[in-house]
């Protein structure tokens, strides 16, 4: 392979990106060296097993990926603004929408959600950490290096260009030669390992590590959402793992699962992809439901309405969501009985979702609604998500879907659910839990500017796309003729996208502003919260709870505060040494080996791949022989930390 095939060449945009990457790396290395921060980086971050730090790293990576995916989105909108545009050529456009989809779902939404879970769940249930802190670090680093592998494709070797769904035979060797599609396969495969481990980790954490007294039906709603999500992750991700592995075998080892030759069945890729893909949608949306439940009930100062129904509707979703995948390919010629069944099952899943919407509305009812930034995101979610939901029901009607399928109606629908669900939720969660993460409160004014730009921009961007769908505009076209009549709405849509971009910039400004001038949260409970995470100082101490709390009902912290107000005498806390897990650099190193193995497979350099895999195996063996019992936080240190609180 020649060097100009190895590096992507010939594109001014790519050269600019190359330069930016090199400069950023030099900058980071310089700053770390100049301020002598290498050791700090290694000891405090790269080797940490603390769920809060891992959560922060997840969120930072997710925001970076949101930036990359967002730039992709803006490039696409720029290309589509006017007919016959030559800003991007077809190949470039295809690469961009492929990476946009993949990154937003797998490297933005998922890690953002995992980040929030990592920060909030152990604190909400009164635990010291997650069940397997070491594996938690491994989850993060496999995700990180999987994402890195996927992202370097745009400067080294070329990006995948077969869509994030990577339908065969288009994604096969014949029609997509070169390393691009391999990046997709290996990047997702490596980060998928992390997702599976995270799923197991959170299930065990939630089932076994709740504070005494916290029965299942006293768990905060976000914890419930995490539990159900994790179950879906554990049972859906193996399907993706297999599907990716089979396509990798097809591309690299000449097998015939999804190929046209050798009697393979390309449709089966779509089948497997969506068996994972539909639960994946709920993996992205259920935690959002959890976040909204927390935020709405906090800022309406009211207990969540119909808690039991909320829980059961989530359980119903977890069972039903495995039974609807065919609605992604009604047009693939499954017979009428198949399509009819999956139509009805898809509509049925709207019922538990509808129940939740009404429960949120009635949580607000008779409340005292305070419009903070976090609350605004949650409120905006309700009407916009309803639109996403009802269009989803429309799409679920198989006979009508033959018309909607592959149009901008579909594009608008899933952005309407994924942005209004997941993105609004992670922004709400970021504002809501920011004090718990960093001890400072995000600036409210900037937060509201972000909100209005983003939400209005969102509607301006995507509502016209429903109409474009009715006008017959198919998705994934890189250009359209002037006489199609789609121009005006595309212009409006692009304006909306730019507004969303401005909103994102304000979010970044807010983070920087808050770092320097943010209001410190000295109480640990800036929102007058209801759940246990607000009972400890901000930022949360590394051991979380000095004394394991006793839970007497739903909204445990709210009840404790009420008891206090009623003048009930508080017991003086008696501190005991707290057992903590030790840091480890192995998850980081092991993930680097995964990265090496993945990179080798992408370019089909088998020796490199084998070296990487051997490294992974050695790391696992070393772990097996390791007997590390962790360490204890002395009482003195706990006393000191706790005394710093008002």
């Amino acid at each position, binding site marked *: 392979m020649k060097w100009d095939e190895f590096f992507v060449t010939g594109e001014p945009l790519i050269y600019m990106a190359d330069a930016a990457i090199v400069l950023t790396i030099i900058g980071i290395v310089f700053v770390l060296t100049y301020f002598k921060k290498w050791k700090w980086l290694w000891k405090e971050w790269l080797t940490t097993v603390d769920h809060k730090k891992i959560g922060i790293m997840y969120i930072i990576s997710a925001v970076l990926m949101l930036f990359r995916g967002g730039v992709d989105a803006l490039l696409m909108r720029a290309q589509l603004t006017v007919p016959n545009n030559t800003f991007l050529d077809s190949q470039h456009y295809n690469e961009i929408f492929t990476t946009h989809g993949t990154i937003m779902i797998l490297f933005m939404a998922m890690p953002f959600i995992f980040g929030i879970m990592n920060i909030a769940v152990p604190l909400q249930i009164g635990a010291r950490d997650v069940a397997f802190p070491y594996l938690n670090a491994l989850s993060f680093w496999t995700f990180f290096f999987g994402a890195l592998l996927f992202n370097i494709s745009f400067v080294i070797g070329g990006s995948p260009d077969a869509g994030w769904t990577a339908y065969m035979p288009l994604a096969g060797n014949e029609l997509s030669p070169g390393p691009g599609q391999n990046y997709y396969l290996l990047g997702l495969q490596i980060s998928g390992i992390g997702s599976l481990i995270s799923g197991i980790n959170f299930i065990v954490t939630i*089932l076994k590590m709740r504070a005494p007294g916290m029965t299942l039906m006293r768990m905060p709603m976000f914890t419930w959402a995490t539990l159900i999500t994790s179950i879906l992750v554990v049972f859906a991700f193996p399907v993706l793992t297999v599907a990716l592995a089979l396509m990798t075998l097809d591309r690299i080892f000449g097998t015939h699962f999804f190929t046209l030759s050798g009697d393979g069945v390309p449709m089966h890729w779509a*089948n497997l992809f969506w068996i994972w893909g539909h639960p994946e949608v709920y993996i992205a949306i259920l935690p959002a439901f959890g976040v909204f439940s927390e935020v709405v009930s906090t800022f309406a100062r009211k207990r969540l309405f119909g808690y039991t129904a909320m829980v059961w509707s989530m359980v119903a979703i977890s*069972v039903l969501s*495995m*039974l609807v995948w*065919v609605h992604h390919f009604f047009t693939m010629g*499954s*017979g009428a009985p*198949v399509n009819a069944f999956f139509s009805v099952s898809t509509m049925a899943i709207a019922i538990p979702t509808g129940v939740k919407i009404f429960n949120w509305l009635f949580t607000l009812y008779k409340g005292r609604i305070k419009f903070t930034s976090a609350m605004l995101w949650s409120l905006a979610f309700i009407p916009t998500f309803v639109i996403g939901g009802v269009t989803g029901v429309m799409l679920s009607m198989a006979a009508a879907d033959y018309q909607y399928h592959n149009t901008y109606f579909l594009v608008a629908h899933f952005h309407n659910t994924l942005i209004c669900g997941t993105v609004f939720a992670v922004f709400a969660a970021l504002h809501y839990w920011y004090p718990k993460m960093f001890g400072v409160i995000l600036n409210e004014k900037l937060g509201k500017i972000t909100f209005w730009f983003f939400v209005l921009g969102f509607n301006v961007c995507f509502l016209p796309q429903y109409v474009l769908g009715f006008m017959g505009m198919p998705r994934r076209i890189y250009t359209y003729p002037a006489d199609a009549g789609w121009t005006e709405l595309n212009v409006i849509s692009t304006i909306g996208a730019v507004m969303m971009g401005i909103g994102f910039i304000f979010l970044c400004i807010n983070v920087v502003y808050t770092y320097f001038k943010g209001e410190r949260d000295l109480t640990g409970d800036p929102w007058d919260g209801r759940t246990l995470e607000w009972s400890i100082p901000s930022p949360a101490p590394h051991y979380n709870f000095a004394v394991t709390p006793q839970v007497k009902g739903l909204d445990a912290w709210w009840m404790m505060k009420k008891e206090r107000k009623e003048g009930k005498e508080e017991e003086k806390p008696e501190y005991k040494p707290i057992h903590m897990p030790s840091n480890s650099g192995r998850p980081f190193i092991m993930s680097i080996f995964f990265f090496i193995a993945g990179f080798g497979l992408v370019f089909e350099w088998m020796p490199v791949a084998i070296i990487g895999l051997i490294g992974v195996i050695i790391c696992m063996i070393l772990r097996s022989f390791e007997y590390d019992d962790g360490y204890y936080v002395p009482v003195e240190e706990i006393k000191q930390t706790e005394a710093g609180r008002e």
Partner: protein
Amino acid sequence: MAQNEKGFPWKHVFGFLLSIILTLLAVWITFSTDLPTNTIITLIVVLAFCQAFIQLLLFMHMKEGESGSWQATMIYYGIYIAIVIVAGSIWVMSLGHQHHY
């Protein structure tokens, strides 16, 4: 329970014999009966499930421990998913598909 594990491991021997019998029964049904193919397949799949539960309950002690019911729940959910994936794929890809040829 630690105290209960005394003497001869009856449970294990019983499970082992049962699984051998079930295996041979499946082989016998497949090769020595004239039942229609679909009946044979249904019968041997049922036998396979029986054997799987022997392993899960007698050898793996699925319901043991404080989280026994959760372990069982997870496995049952896994079985549900497995059936959905296998039966669903066959239905969607082969039996229910409308292609000619």
